């Protein structure tokens, strides 16, 4: 049911975009911009994976790891939250090569944006884990479970549900911040738009299409996360009311 809603939103926004496009002579810009959109989507997806992994590791390390690791997690979180994504991107792209480490632009984009969003995500993870009632921990102690077993089997599955809506927001932040990667030579949606604009000056058409495409991707993220949330809540109280 929710999957259907997702498809509907995607199709509606896409066909709306295409309709507008074909009527007003927007058509010539669409293939190039869609190619850029594909790059934007790739960076968003891969960045999201990096962000979730970094956030989980750093969030849990900050709560439970022995002090050297906890300290490392805190430094990571504060460093990446306290500086802008643009500066992080430039650092990885322009400064690291000075130390002999040269990474491909796509790698830099995914790593920098993933690490940046992951730092915010770490607080989401920490908050959701801390919000699991203390009685749940006490029950695991009374059943003689280890802390790791308790986290994995009891605490994280419950925290997961609470994490989904804030992660939805972060993924949209991530999507929006991908526009920055045009500054390190990647031909994403924003880059393509600027390029076309400089050669054709058809500003209205180009940036209208760009707007619709970003909105469509963001809607898919929103609907997808809501579907995930419903599924997760459903798993908590399965079969309720049957």
């Amino acid at each position, binding site marked *: 049911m929710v999957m259907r809603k997702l498809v509907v939103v995607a199709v509606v926004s896409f066909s709306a975009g295409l309709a507008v496009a074909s009527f007003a002579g927007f058509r010539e810009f669409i293939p190039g911009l869609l190619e850029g959109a594909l790059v934007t989507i790739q960076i968003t997806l891969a960045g999201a994976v990096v962000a979730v992994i970094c956030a989980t590791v750093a969030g849990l390390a900050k709560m439970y790891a022995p002090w050297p690791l906890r300290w490392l997690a805190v430094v990571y979180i504060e460093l990446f939250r306290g500086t802008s994504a643009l500066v992080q991107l430039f650092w990885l792209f322009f400064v690291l090569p000075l130390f002999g480490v040269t990474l491909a632009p796509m790698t830099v984009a995914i790593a920098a944006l993933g690490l940046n969003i992951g730092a915010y995500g770490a607080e989401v993870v920490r908050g959701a884990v801390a919000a699991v009632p203390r009685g749940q921990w006490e*029950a695991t*102690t009374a*059943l*003689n*479970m280890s802390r790791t*077993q308790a986290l994995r089997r009891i605490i994280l599955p*419950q925290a997961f549900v609470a994490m989904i809506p804030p992660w939805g927001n972060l993924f949209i932040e991530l999507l929006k911040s991908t526009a920055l990667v045009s500054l390190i030579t990647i031909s994403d949606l924003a880059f393509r738009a600027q390029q076309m604009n400089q050669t054709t000056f058809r500003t209205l058409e180009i940036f209208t299409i760009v707007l619709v495409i970003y909105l469509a991707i963001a809607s898919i993220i929103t609907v997808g996360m809501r579907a995930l949330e419903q599924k997760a809540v459903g798993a908590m109280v*399965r*079969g309720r009311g049957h």
Partner: protein
Amino acid sequence: MTVQPMVKFDGVTKRYGALTVLDSLDLEIMPGEKVAVIGPSGSGKTTVLRMLMTLEKINDGVIWVDGEPLTHMHKDGRLVLADAAHLRRMRGKIGMVFQHFNLFPHMSALKNCMEAPVTVLKLSKEEARARAVELLEMVGLADKLDHYPAQLSGGQQQRVAIARALAMRPKVMLFDEVTSALDPELVGEVLNVIRRLGSELDLTMLMVTHQMGFAREFADRVCFFYGGKIAEQGPPEQIFGQAQNERTRQFLSACLEAI
């Protein structure tokens, strides 16, 4: 050979900051004995159970379980504070049922009872399931195996929690006001299950309760806590019939008035 106590508090003191909640508590519970703990709010009843479940550290003294130190361990002929491994080994002897059940909301009744036997005791899924089904039947929930906590009444949830604790085969069971969060009409079904455990299983039980009628009928011994100490203890007939201590009499008559 004399029988060893199953549980022994030896001069146990518990403080929260400046507040001394338990003051050099001595208490021995024999194997199979059923002890009811009563007393006014804040007298330290819950704290006694939580220390025994290792949910709370103690400030002084030693707790012994089944002839071995719980809070401490032997090292070079001396008693030193227990490490995590020792606690895990000893904790297996004790089970606890909480006032607010603390069931795992993302697992069915059956899964709640299978979880720790599988992850902690390393039973196979089949063994754990058989054990869980047997216990859920014993607490009268054979038809609710696949229900989630949210789909069960308070009384049913508490019975699942009892089955879940029993699935670890503890020697000592702790009950902390296990009927206090229940609607009055659901209290009976939980007390009946506890009665059944008392008669069918060879368990040592320590229960904090405000159900004076139940304590009187079920317990071998009643301990009245007051101001961080056991003010008076004895068989139910004595405590409820001819209490020596003025505080005990006041407390019991206040309880009667409340009914």
